[in-house]
């Protein structure tokens, strides 16, 4: 059992949990993920590590309440325990030899972009952190972001905060202004990553994407997380989660990501109904 040390709602549906897991905290590196199970009947879900504190022995994650499992997870309060928490899994993000990079994050993906930006920034790399949100209500973690980069750019889909711009537009502006990036690191919704890669390919800037497909064990055992990368089958859990964005078969990845969509909607509804009943 793993104790929730801190719980913070960044927005009503975007939740930060700091979990006591000293052994994982000792080894975790930006780009890696954990797998958790909320309770005995729970499914195993992968969540990318947002932050870690080696001395305190804690690992932080940020999740969006989107389905039955995240709904259940959000029911856990500070001081309570979650059943299983395993990691660190996957390979850490490496951007060897880069002097200037753009780190691009969208939506909940910004939570993952943060530790990567921070690590590179601490290594003396020039980091332009480019983040996008749907609207001003879901803009989060700005202070942290600003401390983890050289320049910070933010846009919203509807223009309700700072300016109306997609991350692709913000990125292209910098490229055209002569940013001359050695590489781009990108994490967020699959469609966003696909379009960032389309853009960077045009400018021939190597782009690393962080993938989060459906997984069961996260150790290479099930193969549920397989992707086609450069015509070859790769397992995101052990070969990734970072891949060369130009080589990912996006259409296949999008379809595989929706494999249990209908089931999940049904389960989410059932879980919400159950919670409502309990509240009455």
């Amino acid at each position: 059992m793993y104790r929730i040390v801190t719980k913070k709602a960044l927005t009503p549906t975007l939740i930060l949990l700091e979990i006591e897991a000293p052994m994982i905290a000792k080894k975790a590196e930006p780009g890696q993920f954990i797998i958790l199970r909320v309770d005995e009947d729970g499914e195993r879900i992968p969540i990318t590590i947002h932050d870690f504190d080696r001395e305190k022995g804690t690992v932080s994650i940020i999740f969006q309440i989107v389905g039955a499992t995240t709904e259940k997870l959000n029911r856990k309060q500070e001081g309570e325990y979650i059943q299983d928490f395993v990691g660190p899994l996957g390979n850490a993000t490496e951007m060897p030899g880069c002097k200037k990079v753009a780190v691009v994050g969208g939506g909940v993906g910004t939570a993952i972009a943060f530790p990567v930006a921070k690590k590179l920034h601490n290594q003396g790399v020039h980091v332009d952190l480019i983040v996008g949100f749907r609207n001003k209500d879901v803009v989060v973690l700005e202070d942290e972001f600003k401390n983890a980069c050289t320049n910070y750019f933010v846009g919203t889909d509807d223009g309700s905060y700072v300016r109306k711009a997609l991350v692709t537009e913000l990125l292209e502006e910098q490229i055209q202004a002569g940013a001359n990036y050695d590489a781009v690191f990108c994490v967020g919704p699959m469609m966003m990553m696909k379009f960032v890669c389309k853009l960077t390919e045009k400018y021939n800037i190597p782009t690393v994407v962080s993938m989060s497909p459906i997984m069961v064990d996260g150790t290479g055992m099930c193969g549920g997380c397989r992707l086609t990368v450069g015509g070859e089958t790769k397992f995101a859990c052990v070969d990734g989660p970072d891949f060369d964005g130009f080589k990912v078969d996006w259409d296949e990845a999008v379809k595989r990501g929706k494999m249990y969509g209908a089931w999940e909607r049904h389960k989410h509804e059932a879980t919400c109904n159950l919670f409502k009943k309990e509240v009455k």
Partner: protein
Amino acid sequence: MPNMSLKKNEMPSQDPNVRNKNFLEVALGYTEEQALDEAARCLNCKNHPCVGGCPVNVKIPEFIKKITEKDYEGAYQVIHETSSLPAVCGRVCPQETQCEKYCVRGVKGEPVGIGRLERFVADWHNAHVQEAPAKPASNGHKVAVIGSGPSGLTCAGDLAKKGYEVTVFEALHLAGGVLVYGIPEFRLPKSIVSKEVDGLKALGVKIETNMVIGRVVSIDELIEQYGFEAVFIGSGAGLPMFMHIPGENLCGVYSANEFLTRINLMKAYKEDSDTPIMPLAGKTVAVVGGGNVAMDAARCSKRLGAEVYVVYRRGMEELPARHEEVEHAIEEGIIFKTLHNPVEIHGGEDGYVKGMTCIQMELGEPDASGRRRPIEIQGSEFELPVDCVIMALGTSPNPLIKNTTPGLEVNRKGCIVVNEDGLTSHPSVYAGGDAVTGAATVILAMGAGKLGAKSIDEQLSK
């Protein structure tokens, strides 16, 4: 006077048309009368060739004699001297190619039902003996075991009995390895596995779940920082193989590992489980492969309401699965498409499987494995409409431990290289089971776990 019937007592089983709709155990086990009758078939012959056929040399005639004396606990103790998992082995061992193959009674008629008797004895013990084994006094030596499958559990048990302080590290959230994620409930109830694990805990074995060795802590760290004097690697062969044919990454194509893990470990067949599995009621499933894992995947699919094909490139005679498993599958209505091989999987616009192109095969001359080589019959391709494809083509060892343990030698197939004592190229690291042999059987893994324990004991008690 021995029972000279040429036939074994039949195993009472759930009716095929009932059991193919539930996940309860298929074989129900002998009654006391049946066990006594079967035990009386053993001649207690002088040479007892059966013992040599058992990878852990269970004293078979001795335990059967105890049954005839109605000393069932005595029989259990005889088995337990050499086998740490009797209730498991009585269910999943391929007795027909081991102990029973060498039984003298098999020369004329059927051999003694040794496996069925072993199961009877183990179940009797589990039902009647509650007291936990006493925890032996510690000898002060710490040993780490990686993996809680058959080899790891056996190694841990043998060492704990000798007073070693053993910690088992398991990557998943539940101990048991392939016994819990791979073998289905209807062949091996999970309550039996948890009972065996509880027995080990009573002996003082610590089980640490959620520990992916190589990620959270390395083997060298276990030795240098955590004070373990020896390590046994029993991490199995968990990496699924695929065919690398077009369409293999469509929605609805599973590795048998994923499919079985969702069902067995995550209980996706139960209403209250949060883990999804493709709804298969009224759908058609093709399981590709012919081993025990393929049979398990096929029979699980059937239980989820699907029409099921087993697609295998050789003939019925060549199926590597246990004869009994194939028979059970046929009884349950699984359709065997032998001498067929998939060429391509097709999907619809939505990305889900719609069908599979297969080609017919014929058998040529024997190949290096001694089995007749399957050859494609040109122009025999045809379309098999299916909604789901499960690849049960075998597994290979996970490279994680190799990649994070400098100096650990593996062979071309990624299997850990060991000497005759189970020692790896690392001076205090032993290994055994599928991590060394590639995918094999529960009992062979147990044998390797025993050897590992013996060698570790010899090294540390010097």
